[in-house]
């Protein structure tokens, strides 16, 4: 029987979880319910935290454990809770009204995935752990952009922004040995937390003055 080194197991685990992130992302694109979308975001962040945990375990890197824990607390527990509370507090209707219907969106995201693989191709030699993680990261960034334009509710746009951020963090893990230096990881973490809180304040104020969360109504300023 062929022996499998720990590094290979780690690599396969990372690949598996990155693939799961992609699956969750595709579910998010076609999800029409707001609360379910937030839950999907939490699940996707959980896999990101898992990837960091696996890397920390197989490389004995203490600071990456910290990154995993921060991701777990911040993006799996705190941010979903914050967004959930926001949704309940302003009592918005549940359903998202996307510009493109689900099959179209799925088709587009399929092509984004292809594009992601094409773009990542020259850099695959750089991936330290796992396969195709960079391609998935780029796909996440692209679909995040797509979500931003496809959905008009302010909170779903916040989710789109978080999708892009997840993609970038995955790219950081894919391309470098242990992710970014700790001080940078901390900076990014606090920025994301504060950003979502400030966006929450803005969403609340927009809701108060427009009596709606539809950002396509924000169209008075032109030229």
């Amino acid at each position, binding site marked *: 029987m062929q022996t499998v080194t720990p590094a290979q197991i780690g690599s396969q685990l990372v690949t598996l979880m990155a693939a799961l992130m992609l699956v969750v992302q595709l579910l998010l694109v076609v999800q029409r319910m707001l609360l379910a979308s937030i839950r999907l975001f939490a699940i996707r962040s959980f896999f990101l935290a898992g990837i960091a945990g696996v890397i920390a375990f197989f*490389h004995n*890197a203490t600071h990456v454990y910290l990154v995993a824990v921060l991701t777990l607390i911040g993006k799996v527990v705190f941010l979903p809770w914050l967004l959930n509370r926001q949704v309940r507090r302003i009592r918005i209707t549940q359903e998202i009204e996307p510009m493109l219907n689900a099959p179209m969106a799925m088709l587009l995201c399929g092509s984004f995935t292809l594009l992601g693989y094409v773009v990542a191709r*020259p*850099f695959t030699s*750089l991936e330290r752990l796992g396969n195709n993680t960079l391609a998935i990261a780029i796909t996440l*960034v692209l679909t*995040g*952009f797509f979500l*931003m334009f496809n959905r008009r509710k*302010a909170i779903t*746009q916040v989710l789109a*922004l978080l999708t*892009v*951020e997840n993609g*970038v963090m995955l*790219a*950081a893990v894919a*391309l*470098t*040995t*242990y992710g*970014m*230096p700790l*001080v*940078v990881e901390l*900076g*990014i973490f*606090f*920025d994301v937390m*504060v*950003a979502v809180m*400030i*966006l929450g*304040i*803005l969403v609340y*104020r*927009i809701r108060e*003055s*427009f009596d709606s969360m539809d*950002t396509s109504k*924000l*169209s*008075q*300023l032109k*030229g």
Partner: protein
Amino acid sequence: MPLLTFILFAPAAVGLANLLLPRGRLMASLSVLTFGATLVLSIMLLEQVLRFGVITEWDGFLYADALSALMVLLISAVSLGSSLYAGRYFQRDLDDKAITPGRVREFFVLTPLFVAGMFLVVLANNLGVMWAAVEATALSSVLLVALYNRPTSLEAAWKYIMLGSLGLALALLGTVFVYAAACKSNPQPLPSFNWSHLMTVAHLFDPKLIQIAFVFALLGYGTKAGLAPMHTWLPDAHSEAPSPTSAMLSGVSLKIALYALLRFHILTTACLGSGFSRHLLLGFGLFSMLLAAPFILVQRNLKRMLAYSSLEHVGLICTGIALNTPVTIFGALLHMGYHALTKPVLFFAAGNIHQTCHTLELRLIGPGLVKVVPATVLLMALAGMAAIGLPPFGLFFSELTVISGGIAAGQIAVSVLVLAALILSFCGLLQQFTRILLGTPKQERKDPGTRFDGVPAMAFMLGTLLLFSIWLPESLRKIMHQAAGIIGGTR
């Protein structure tokens, strides 16, 4: 004395102190005092950098070279002017019941934090920390844009934070690619991500990675710097923010993003040794200039017009740097400084006009403003002359420096395009200003404020501009040449 530490923490501490102070007047005076102090400190920093070349603190976490020192000076000067203006401005808004005391406190808490964020951008040695600081400036300024809580200002704030954050996510991706290049060239598991270290090993980096990193950084920081076609948030945010914030956004915030972009440009050029990043910068710079000019001509809102003028000036700075001769880079840096001193005066005047006329629509404001608020109009006309590039103001010299440098470098086509864009916006601004400032008023307007509202702040900025236009101190000239050397890669 730990200069950099003081410069960084003084505004942050004051921002927190303003949470506790009882009255707006006190908060305003404390801000003025602090920014006055940071201005003195930044002049001291300038001297130190001239003497020692590079200053580091906290074990190399904070790093200041000539370029950083120059930016610190600009941030301090504009912050001082803005806080000088803000006290009276918000007092009048409070009297008019246009704003609540809570919101005024919000302004005096967030503005120093915004400034501290900008200081961190230019003083951080680590490129990742620099990114986090740029994001922090965006986050601290977005609630300032939404300060008046009008539907339009909420819209502007939403666009600003959404486009800004999307852009900055791309910039982070660019930053990650640079770090990946650093990891690849270095067998150590966690190589240093410090600027001072990166520059020494830049020639070892994978060119392909650095190229893609620069493209992402250009799209990302370019959005924040307001380069066309990613500029769409800029006129909204600059017109809807309260005037002291507009002045900060236009005067320094755009240049801070440009500074971050320049660091990537310097690194890319050092790695590739070719004009890859330069050509891209040139394209975006020229496009911004050419796009801004027609928008100035047809603009119907005073502050939006000023915002498009900022777009044009940022385009010129970019173009000057992209032409990449010592003369044009020097001209671009000169232009950066002069523009930072000019544009706030125009935004302050626009703030006064807004408070007197209760509108920013050019059609409803003018003509004949000179009869209503003579002091404001006089200063606005002078600053307007500076902004369109008339002597004796410095922008005339810096524009001429860039154009003549371009011609001397054989870039005739670029120079002609720059000249054409400048002439177009010259006509646009001149026509719009004369339309509202001169003539006889159509309707009776009384000026409810005192006649000299905001005049000290405007006179301070304009006086400094005039002084440095006529006489550029030797130390400042030296530091600019050094900074130009850093950008041009000769040092």
